[in-house]
């Protein structure tokens, strides 16, 4: 079952913060976050595992609430390079399902 992401789109000015949410109707084992720029392949940002383990880039932070089956990606002090579409992928029984994406635009 596909996870639900919110918001669908967000526009920021450089230096502003944003939060992207991902929720699932089923119990999750892990949540993956990727960013995709227009016309390019998705690029890995972070993995959050059940039990608290995290793996990802130092400048990216995220949370994983196992009970609520939700994850949030926190983008602070946004830069122009943060623009792109952010996808969360939820893993249930080794099956990965991606959300529809959140389009982030950072303006000067």
């Amino acid at each position, binding site marked *: 079952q596909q996870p639900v992401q919110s918001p669908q789109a967000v526009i920021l000015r450089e230096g502003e913060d944003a939060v992207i949410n991902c929720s699932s109707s089923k119990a999750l084992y892990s949540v*993956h976050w*990727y960013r995709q720029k227009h016309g390019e*392949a998705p*690029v*890995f940002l972070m*993995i959050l595992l059940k039990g608290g383990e995290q793996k990802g880039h130092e400048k990216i932070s995220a949370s994983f609430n196992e009970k609520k089956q939700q994850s949030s990606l926190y983008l602070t002090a946004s830069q122009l390079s943060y623009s792109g579409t952010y*996808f969360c992928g939820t*893993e249930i029984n080794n099956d990965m399902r*991606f959300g529809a*994406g959140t389009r982030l635009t950072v303006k000067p």
Partner: protein
Amino acid sequence: EAGVAQSPRYKIIEKRQSVAFWCNPISGHATLYWYQQILGQGPKLLIQFQNNGVVDDSQLPKDRFSAERLKGVDSTLKIQPAKLEDSAVYLCASSPNRNSNNEQFFGPGTRLTVL
């Protein structure tokens, strides 16, 4: 380290024709994924291989789509016959294995247009 390679990058065909896409994963990666990404949507998993065995193909339209990874390295995805709704970017990704703490490395994709 070389990334995931895919070819062709673009393909235009007419409906009812056949098409094949090729993917070469990162060397040593046991797990290979094929995704379909329709414009404006997230990637949809079509099939997952672990070495040369299929782990998950529950979302693969088996009446027209097929995929193989005979030697556990590169893989081919075929559509026969193609429909208009198959127009999408087909992404191949690989990871060292199926462990949940492994990120997926995506290739550049093949953009298919069915006319």
